[in-house]
């Protein structure tokens, strides 16, 4: 479980995260949602340590990450897999080399063992046989799947996905969503997904945290997001007439 407690973060005097407290459960797909520019990605980057928080604590299964330094912090990071918005694959490496990279840097596995693990991970994301492709030769969806394979190669305890569906068509988005959900349940990972794709939220979100103007404005599960009367979340999730109609249908289903 990951807990963030009373986190504050500002950039050049502008408060971006304002006293955020949230819990992300193990074995569940936890989602951070909100409009663009509300601090979702900053929150995720604070949790993984890419930004330092000004105040507050980040607890990884009780270990206070924000108070750790150097190797102790690095040890926790080795338990984290992260899927970046733009995939962040290493351009000069093939799909297989990208997946093997954390293994070669952080474990003492032999080359054969690393190749077996890379094959397993690529197979898990339905990319078997694509080992030798360079990122530039892959579609956006394939790049995301390679990035997921790389993220799970170290058998992480925590998986962060920053806008996993950005730039993908609806069908490929569903493939990525399902993959994230399957991996989370299969390996009992604490998964945190940052998104504003409401389809993903309704489809795979077990726990949802809604960030508005840098504050934790609402939290609940995917059923609660359908029935909530919170004006801020209704304004965001059901902004269009189409989504309002969907809400009515979904509420009818729940009844």
């Amino acid at each position: 479980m990951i807990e963030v407690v009373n986190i504050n973060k500002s950039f050049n005097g502008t408060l971006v995260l304002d006293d955020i407290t949230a819990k992300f459960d193990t074995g569940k797909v936890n989602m951070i949602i909100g409009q663009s520019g509300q601090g979702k990605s900053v929150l995720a980057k604070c949790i993984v340590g890419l930004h330092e928080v000004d105040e507050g604590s980040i607890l990884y299964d009780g270990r206070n990450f924000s108070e750790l330094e150097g190797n102790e912090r690095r040890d926790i990071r080795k338990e984290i897999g992260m899927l970046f918005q733009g995939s962040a694959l290493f351009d000069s490496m093939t799909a297989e080399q990208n997946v093997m990279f954390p293994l070669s840097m952080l474990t003492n596995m032999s080359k054969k063992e690393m190749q077996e693990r890379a094959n397993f991970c690529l197979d898990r994301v339905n990319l078997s046989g694509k080992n030798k492709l360079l990122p530039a030769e892959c579609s956006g969806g394939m790049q995301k799947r390679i990035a997921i394979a790389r993220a799970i190669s170290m058998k992480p305890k925590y998986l962060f996905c920053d806008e996993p569906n950005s730039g993908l068509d609806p069908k490929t988005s569903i493939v990525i969503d399902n993959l994230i959900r399957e991996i989370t349940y299969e390996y009992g990972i604490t998964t945190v997904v940052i998104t504003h794709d409401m389809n993903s939220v309704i489809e795979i979100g077990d726990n949802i945290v809604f960030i508005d103007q840098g504050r934790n404005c609402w939290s609940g599960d995917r059923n609660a997001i359908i029935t909530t009367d919170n004006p801020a979340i209704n304004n965001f999730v059901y902004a269009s007439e189409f989504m309002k109609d969907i809400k009515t249908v979904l509420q009818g289903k729940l009844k």
Partner: protein
Amino acid sequence: MMLRIIFSRPEKMRIFRYRLMNEIELIGLKSLPIVVLISVFMGGVIALQTAANMDSPLLPEYTIGYITRSSTILEFSPTILSLILAGKIGSNIASEIGTMRVTEQIDALETMGINSLTYLVLPKIVAAVLFFPLILVFSIVLSLVGGWLALVSSGLSNTETYIFGLRSFYLDSDIVYALVKSEVFAFVIVTISSFYGYYTKGGALDVGRSSTQAVVISSVVILICNFFLTQMILL
């Protein structure tokens, strides 16, 4: 602060050696064609200009070789070549690391628990510091050959006189001075370019800006260091 992190122990020595070999190829071997071209022609030009300006009958002809050697060892090969390589290597390093920054590849390294500065920058620094002295010696030899070719082909001097000039008033300390300068300049080019690349913020435009800044600042720092090193070592 950045340097302290760069000089941390690499996670895996095997990977470090592999990256070091790659960087030696990129920074060192791939710079050789331009080094050859510039050194030969600059040596030739130095020799020709010296010969053309020697009007006084009191100056012996071997002075051409002596001045060509001194100019090459003291200034041309360590300083001018470093300025040229700051353009080639500096822009390459800043744009490579800058692109990795804006495409979140550096963030990916950090979230994996890998020290990105040590992984990316240390092999570049070691490769440059190891290879620049070799480039320097290579450049000195080629410049002197270029000077000889220019003089002999133009009939302004002959081989014996030129070689006599090259060997006149020779000081080992000149070579030491040139080697020290090349080491300092190698370090300056790689660290400044890496700094600008690593701290790039934004997109493609900012990568280009970082690359330009890396070259300009490296060049200025090289000139300043050149002045102080000359004061410290030669005077």
